């Protein structure tokens, strides 16, 4: 039997593991989510936002609020569908180039990477050979 740290069966997400990751980073992430002024000034710093026809779903704050923000809101009620949506946001709408700039100092890349870590812990991954 292979035992791995990042594992999980394919039916139900391991809530305890997600919660432990969420709680470990709670203070910082809650602070980020609280100080985000929803000002949308981060939009222009994202190259994906600029190339994808200025579609608001590519705006850094939109990505953060809808991925890590929703995970913190749902907590125990996180299900596989939500994680699949978070996966879409964390991988397909962000390449983690760390060039986004928040005037209020929110560390956006660390939030996206935490969302990715949570997906990874449940073995929810992007399919690199399907994309191109």
């Amino acid at each position, binding site marked *: 039997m292979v035992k791995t740290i990042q594992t999980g069966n394919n039916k139900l997400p391991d809530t305890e593991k997600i919660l432990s990751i969420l709680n470990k980073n709670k203070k910082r992430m809650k602070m980020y989510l609280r100080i985000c002024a929803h000002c949308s000034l981060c939009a222009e710093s994202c190259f994906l936002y600029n190339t994808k026809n200025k579609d608001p779903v590519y705006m850094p704050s939109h990505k953060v609020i809808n991925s890590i923000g929703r995970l913190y809101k749902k907590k125990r009620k996180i299900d596989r569908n939500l994680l699949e949506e978070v996966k879409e946001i964390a991988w397909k709408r962000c390449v*983690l180039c760390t060039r986004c700039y928040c005037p209020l100092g929110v560390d956006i890349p*660390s939030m996206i*990477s935490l969302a*990715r870590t949570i997906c990874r812990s449940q073995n929810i991954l992007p399919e*690199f050979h399907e994309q191109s």
Partner: protein
Amino acid sequence: MVKGKVKPLEEITESIKKYKKVLNIGCGGCVSVCLAGGQREVIALNEELNLFFKNRNIDILIEGYTVERPCNNQYLIELDEIIPSYDCLISMACGAGVQHIAERYPDKPVFPALDTIAIGIDRDVGLYEERCRACGECVIGYTGGVCPVTRCAKGLYNGPCGGVLKDKCEVNADNYCAWVMIYNRLKEQDRIEDIINVRPATDWRNQVQRTIVQKKYEHRYNKR
């Protein structure tokens, strides 16, 4: 970007067989894109390794963890608390990632599980081709977009050599001669004069480690 290939299983098992508890660190960046060292490949390699040691009745526990990009300190922080419980680490990141992990955890032996091959392009699923060797002085401006360092077996800056046979390379007959390609391309674009002048060859002697500081940010580091 960076392309790599998993090392032969024997080489990996040889390096870790002395240890009891091993952590396999994957990378979610370039090597994950070339299907060599992402989380899926980490799990697959771990299964293979566990089977290998089980068949030989060797008691080794191999676990896996994938971080976003081991070449950035920010993404290694999450490893800090799980690493102390392991005897050794193997990493499926590229050479840069493995070295960065080794630098961050000085007391843990780190072994590469991947051969980092080149900076290349994606041809097909699982099929990649080398395009750049990061020599640091790009010349493809005057060679018509064909890199003489990677595409020419001899890395000639003023080619071709005498071994061209029917447009093919004498070292490997499957490869086209880079300098024939360069000539044809420049001729089509009417800029043959670009390769008429003799260019000095790259100074390969001084292969010191390079540090990159972007022009705009030089003022930050000049004080030191």
